[in-house]
């Protein structure tokens, strides 16, 4: 079946949300449409894409956060990967949150699968999903007191004594 054309998606979104659609561009490598929206209207946008008779983006492939420490007041990027299974069309929805207050509405009311994905984003990046039914750590140990995928924390555990760099000429 014919894929959904990118201009149609952008037209429909800008007609509905106007200036809350911050940017639309075609990602050059895989030709996927990337849409950046105002974080306050993210769930409305997802709902619109879900319900619209021509768009029907009803499958949430993935949902995750990315940390960009150099971007002031939009350090945490939230990405939603949507898929229209009838017309095999994929789009990416992005939105930015300040690291001082990384709060966003939950997508669990629209997609049940968002439940564990949002818990993972909370576990690793500390994104608070307002209205999530069970927002607690999912992969890391419950007693962990930081969000390990934020860039300010080192990957290494830091307690090893056998990794003396002088022995390896580094």
């Amino acid at each position, binding site marked *: 079946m014919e894929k959904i054309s990118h201009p149609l998606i952008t037209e429909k979104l800008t007609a509905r949300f106007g200036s809350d659609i911050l940017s639309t561009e075609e990602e050059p490598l895989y030709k996927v449409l990337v849409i950046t929206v105002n974080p306050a209207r993210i769930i409305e946008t997802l709902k619109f894409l879900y319900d619209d008779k021509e768009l029907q983006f009803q499958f949430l492939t993935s949902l995750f956060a990315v940390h960009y420490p150099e971007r002031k007041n939009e350090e945490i990027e939230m990405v939603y990967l949507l898929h229209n299974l009838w017309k095999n069309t994929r789009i990416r929805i992005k939105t930015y949150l300040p690291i001082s207050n990384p709060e966003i509405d939950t997508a669990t009311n629209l997609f049940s699968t968002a439940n564990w994905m949002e818990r993972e984003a909370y576990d690793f990046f500390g994104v608070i999903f307002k209205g999530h039914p069970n927002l607690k750590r999912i*992969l890391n*140990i419950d007693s*962990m007191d930081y969000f*390990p995928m934020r860039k300010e924390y080192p*990957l*290494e*555990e830091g307690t*090893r004594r056998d990794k003396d760099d002088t022995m390896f000429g580094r």
Partner: protein
Amino acid sequence: MTTIKIPSLAEAPPGYEGHGFFATSLDRAIGLARKYSIWPLPFATSCCGIEFMATMGAHYDFARFGSERPSFSPRQADLLMVMGTIAKKMGPPLKQVYIQMAEPRWVLAMGACASSGGIFDTYSVLQGIDEIIPVDVYVPGCPPRPEQVIDGLMRVQDLVQNESLRRRHSPEYKALLAKYGIE
């Protein structure tokens, strides 16, 4: 009439022998019995576990050393064999399994991950199981070959045979467990 000499399975411990009797100390008799009946509990989380399965199989035949019955319940196990990467989240279950084992109990850490964290120097992985439970024998390797595992088991057998019956009541042993927060 020809006599067939049956090779002895285990060396008799030092003692006094005469016509119709053999006397040795209780420590040595029990040590000998325990040495050849160690029931291991395989706690396998990753590739070392696969290597251990080869060790248990017919070719390397781990059962030769009296470990015929791998005990998948900690209640009846003597030796906890920790094989593979232990994530921090797996730490509390591992400690629980150790606590459920009855004394006397021994622990063997198989492979680089269980011994020191190995290549996984990362926030989510325990940097060696000796952070949470006492370890008797470390087997290095990534993963160790079955011969190394068998050698590790034989080192455990040495410990088992030579351990004093009073060791588990000694203040040193109690202090060791207290260090790990185990009663």
